[in-house]
Every structure is written in structure tokens, then in C-alpha cells.
């Protein structure tokens, strides 16, 4: 396992991942007026990120494709209501996140509200790291290892981690998407990173023991 010796950058200096896309605004207007080619263009511009979000949240290709389909059908129904108050990708992601959360509720979280579904059960929480012996992760994580660790995060942590650290959304955008507070988004992200550290360190210890 190796990823080279790149220096960690400050955690708050996050690169934006959703810059405006050339031709998108025009395609939105045309799609709002029923232009099917414009809708197809929007699909091709955003299918990868929507699918990736669904796949990370469900860990199953068939389900992820079903939900990607559902998200774009919802887009087709609702595109007329997009007013441009937020970036289109943020708006579409909010829609996709709702589709994913609805699906997760149907699978077993039916009694849980959106805010609560973002709160993992107590046992899943990361531990405070007071007095633990040191073992730094720097230089030791590759894509596959991290991907596996993310899969093992509780859904609420995973969603905020993917939206912020992977997709590059800001906390205010995530709060808007998930209908939660900015503080809640920040707190979930921190807990997600702490839990990931725990999972990655556990993995390293197991490897060293072999």
C-alpha cells in the first residue's frame, strides 16, 4: 500500500468540485421547455456523479443504477421548478440524495426522520482519541483501502463525507441538500473522519499482525 509522499494540505483548503459547466445553463433552459436532446445532455453531464453517489451509499450496482434512473426521472418531472437559486449540480444532488434517503428508509429506516437518519447509532460513533499510542496514516492509504473504509461508515457519516470531502460541496450546500443545520453537517463530517481514521488504523494493525 502506497500513495507516495505528498504532504497533507490543510483540511479546510478544499478544492471546489462543482464549477459551472459550459453549455449547462442553455441546456437547462431548453430542457425546461421540453427539449429532449438538452435533457440528454444534462444526463450525460451529471450521470457519473449521481451514479457514484448512489453507488457509494448503496454499495450495489443494480440498486445504484435503479436509483440513478429514479433521480433522473425526478429531474425530468421537476426541472421546470429549478430557479437557479443554487448551482444546478447542487440542486440535482439534493434531489438524488432524497431519492437515496427514501430508498434507505424503505429498506429499514422507515421510522426515522431525515435529521435522525443522519445521526448514526451510538455504537457506531468514533472514539475520542485521548492517550492512544501514535500510528500515523500518512503515506499508507490507497484508493481501494479508503474506498473499503468508506463503505464501512454508517450511512449518515458516509453521506456527508462523500458530499464534502469527495464531491467538494460546502457545508451550507450540504445543509441545504440534507435539510439539516450547517453545524450538524460539520459535526457529521468530523465524526466521519474520526471513524475513518479508526477503521484505517484497525486495518493497518491487522496487516502488521499478519
Amino acid at each position, binding site marked *: 500500500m502506497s500513495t507516495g509522499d505528498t504532504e497533507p494540505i*490543510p483540511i479546510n483548503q478544499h478544492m471546489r468540485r462543482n464549477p459551472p459547466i459550459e453549455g449547462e445553463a442553455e441546456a437547462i*433552459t431548453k430542457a425546461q421547455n421540453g427539449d429532449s436532446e438538452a435533457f440528454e445532455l444534462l*444526463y450525460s453531464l451529471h*450521470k457519473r456523479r449521481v451514479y457514484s453517489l448512489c453507488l457509494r451509499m448503496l454499495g450495489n450496482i443494480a440498486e445504484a443504477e435503479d436509483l440513478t434512473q429514479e433521480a433522473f426521472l425526478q429531474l425530468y418531472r421537476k426541472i*421546470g421548478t429549478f430557479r437557479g437559486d443554487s448551482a444546478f449540480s447542487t440542486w440535482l444532488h439534493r434531489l438524488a440524495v432524497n431519492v437515496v434517503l427514501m430508498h434507505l428508509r424503505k429498506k429499514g429506516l422507515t421510522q426515522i426522520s431525515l435529521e435522525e437518519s443522519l445521526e448514526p447509532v451510538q455504537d457506531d460513533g468514533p472514539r475520542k482519541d485521548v492517550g492512544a499510542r501514535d500510528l500515523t496514516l500518512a503515506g499508507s492509504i490507497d484508493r481501494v483501502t*479508503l474506498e473499503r473504509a468508506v463503505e464501512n461508515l454508517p450511512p449518515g457519516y458516509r453521506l456527508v463525507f462523500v458530499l464534502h*470531502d*469527495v464531491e467538494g460541496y460546502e457545508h451550507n450546500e450540504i445543509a441545504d441538500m440534507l435539510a439539516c443545520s450547517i453545524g450538524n453537517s460539520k459535526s457529521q463530517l*468530523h465524526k466521519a*473522519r474520526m471513524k475513518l481514521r479508526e477503521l484505517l488504523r484497525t486495518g493497518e494493525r491487522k496487516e502488521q499482525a499478519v
Partner: protein
Amino acid sequence: MTDKRSFTKDTTKMDCAHFQERLPELFESGADLGADEHLRSCSNCAALVRDLEYIAQQAKLLLPLHDPSPTVWTNIQSAIQRDGVNLERENKSPVKHP
């Protein structure tokens, strides 16, 4: 008589707990963590900060790589054509693009 070593250890633990409670806000504020007094004297918390920064950096490795299969678009098209009436669009609002 107070055990000096245990007192120091407890104080350090309290400092660590306090520091880690503040950590989410410190990260988000963009503060220079290298200048933090506790961090300069606590190797455990320094390692924690390094790890969390490293995890956030490595998360970029997870950018989407795969597209859904072509079947997804075929199904979307079919659903729109088949259920066109049921998929009646919601009211349009005046468009205001950024």
C-alpha cells in the same frame, strides 16, 4: 501527597479532550493549527490532526470513475415515452440562472 505524574497525565488528558472538542471548528475556521499551543506540545493530538488532514486529502482519490451502464439511459427514455402523461411536469417558474 499528590502524585505529580498522575496529575500531569490527567491534565494532559483534559487538554486533549478540550482540544479535540474544538477540532471541528478549528478545521473549518481555517485557523493555523501549527500555531496551537496544545498541538505543539502533544504528539498524540498532532498525529490525530495529521491523520485527519491526510484522510481529507486522500478523499480526492475517490472522485467518480464509472458511468452507469447504457441501460439506465434507455430505461429513462422508455419511462418518459411510456408514462409521458404520468410524468407531467410540475409548474414552471421563471428561470433565473446564476
